[in-house]
């Protein structure tokens, strides 16, 4: 007996009981859509982490001032500036395993060039910032040491700022204003695009931190910085560097053994670990739903196939009497259950993709649907169909033709 005829015959029997076939596939539909969503969420999380890595740079530690308390109300991180340029210098000098240290202060400023103007966040920093954050300079150059020391009025700008203020013209060596202060552009950054949060990374301006403190930002706390970024030489030394920073800053800020830190070191790798683990939790949950419903779906298919074998006992008897071998009968019922589960799998894939898109729309979770997850789902449903269809098919093939023919 050829596969094509068997397929046709099985399709006909399934069509006779359309509603029953659909209901039977429900378990597999739910199972497979959970598998699709689970893999989409998991893959989305790792893609987001990879993208963050790319836009933020790797092996990073970020030091903020600890949250200030003002009349009992905790303010945001970095609101009580305790970190200074001297702290940054000390870390660079004393820490081992450090590739670069970069103090930064950020403020939103109005930029003007000719009759164009644009509002963006201006970062005061040093030359290390470029490679700490894995930026590249497309045209021009990084800050010179003298420019940093002498608080020169020079700026490196991102692609978005260049487009807004200069259009297609190369902005390097042009002079524009931050607030009222004229700055000469010495570099244009290579575009990075959006980061993991959907913000435009290229909408940015870098100036020397001393220039920022003295000439642009009206700081209430002269000499302090919002944040110090530290890039370690590798992933392995990250924890050790964090330890050293803690010691240095506690000593410099004269915090006793029982005193509370007035700063906070954040490890980007740890933050990513948090994202990963929450994605993992969601995946485990969905995985549990998936395996339970695939199991239930499989049992459902087995149940319906057993009912079908009983209902069609006489048909099986006729088929055997006119020349069907036990193998033919087994194949027919196995293919029927395989079709049921593959049908469920297909619907499940569609629902899973829609569900994943819905989750993305509602919660903003990163979602990424891979070919692999679709193949896995098809594999799963085929596996379920064959495993749970085997017993009913086997039962059908063992029927005694005479008794089957007598069956009413």
């Amino acid at each position, binding site marked *: 007996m*050829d596969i094509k005829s068997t397929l046709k015959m099985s399709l006909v029997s399934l069509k006779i009981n359309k509603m029953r076939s659909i209901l039977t596939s429900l378990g597999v539909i739910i199972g497979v859509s959970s598998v699709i969503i689970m893999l989409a969420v998991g893959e989305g999380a790792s893609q987001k982490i990879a993208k963050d890595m790319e836009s933020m740079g790797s092996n990073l530690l970020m030091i903020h001032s600890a949250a200030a308390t003002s009349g009992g109300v905790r303010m945001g991180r970095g609101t009580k500036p305790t970190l200074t340029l001297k702290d940054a210098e000390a870390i660079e000098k004393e820490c081992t395993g450090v590739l670069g240290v970069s103090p930064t202060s950020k403020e939103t400023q109005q930029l003007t060039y000719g009759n164009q103007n644009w509002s963006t966040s201006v970062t005061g920093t040093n030359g290390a910032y470029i490679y700490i954050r894995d930026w590249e300079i497309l045209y021009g150059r990084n800050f010179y040491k003298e420019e940093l020391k002498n608080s020169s009025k020079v700026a490196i700008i991102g692609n978005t700022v260049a487009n807004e203020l200069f259009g297609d013209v190369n902005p390097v060596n042009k002079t524009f204003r931050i607030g009222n202060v004229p700055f000469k552009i010495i570099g244009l950054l290579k575009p990075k695009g959006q980061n993991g949060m959907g913000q435009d990374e290229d909408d940015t301006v870098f100036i020397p931190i001393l220039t920022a403190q003295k000439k642009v930002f009206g700081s209430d706390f002269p000499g302090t910085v919002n944040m110090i970024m530290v890039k370690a030489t590798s992933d392995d030394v990250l924890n050790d560097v964090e330890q050293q920073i803690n010691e240095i800053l506690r000593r410099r800020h004269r915090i006793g053994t029982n005193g509370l830190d007035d700063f906070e070191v954040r490890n980007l790798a740890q933050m990513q670990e948090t994202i990963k683990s929450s994605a993992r939790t969601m995946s485990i949950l969905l995985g549990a739903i998936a395996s339970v419903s695939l199991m239930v779906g499989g049992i459902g298919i087995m149940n319906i196939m057993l009912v079908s074998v009983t209902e069609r006992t006489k048909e099986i008897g*006729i088929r055997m*009497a006119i*020349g069907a071998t036990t193998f033919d009968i087994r194949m027919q019922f196995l293919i029927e259950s395989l079709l049921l589960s593959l049908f469920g799998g297909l619907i499940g894939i569609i629902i899973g993709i829609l569900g994943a898109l819905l989750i993305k729309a509602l919660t903003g979770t990163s979602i990424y649907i891979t070919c692999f997850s679709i193949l896995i789902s098809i594999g799963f449903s085929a596996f379920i169909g064959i495993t749970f269809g085997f017993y009913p098919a086997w039962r059908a093939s063992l029927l005694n*033709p005479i008794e089957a023919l007598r069956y009413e």
Partner: protein
Amino acid sequence: MERKIIEVKNAIKIYKSGDEEFRALNYVSLTVYEGEFVAIMGASGSGKSTFMNMLGCLDKPNSGSYFLDGVDVLHKDQNELAKIRSKKMGFVFQGFNLISRTSAIDNVCLPMIYSGIDEPLRIKKAKEALRIVGLSGRENHMPNQISGGQQQRVAIARAIVNDPPLILADEPTGNLDTKTSIEVMNFFVSLNEKMGKTIVLVTHEPDIAEFCKRVVTFKDGNIISDTIKKKR
């Protein structure tokens, strides 16, 4: 030497229901030669269907021997028997026994699916078989859309479509009126005479047995008479 299509010797069939044993066939021996048209008669419960099922390799006797076209079929397994059934014989059952919700042509195609004939040839042969039984134009009707006589003719078409040398029919006219019965019997006669098929047919009615060349009568699991009325 005539070719023996069926050679049964001393077949015994015992049915057990609970503690009671019932001997449905009691040392039955019968030889049927190629080209014969045999009627099997007997009262209800005399063992006719039991015997036919054995001839059709659907059931095995408890003892005795059965050679079908020279092959010892009692020592074959299920799959070999399925092959033999699809090649050597066509079966028309007591009652119509078409597969429900399956069109006439699909019913007729079934034996060919199992004997491995390609789809185009299958459809051609099925149409031809339906034409022979006078059902052209009804190919796509479902069993519940045609009359009892027509259903029986679909079953006959299904039995002859693989062109088997032997046709077994268990009360093919049992559910039909006299006029339709005569039509069906004339058809069996032409199968026997024109196409040279060997036919073994079970019936209750002497009128139907009149169409056959040889009449074998069963009583309580024994053959009590065997009359050859007409030479092959």
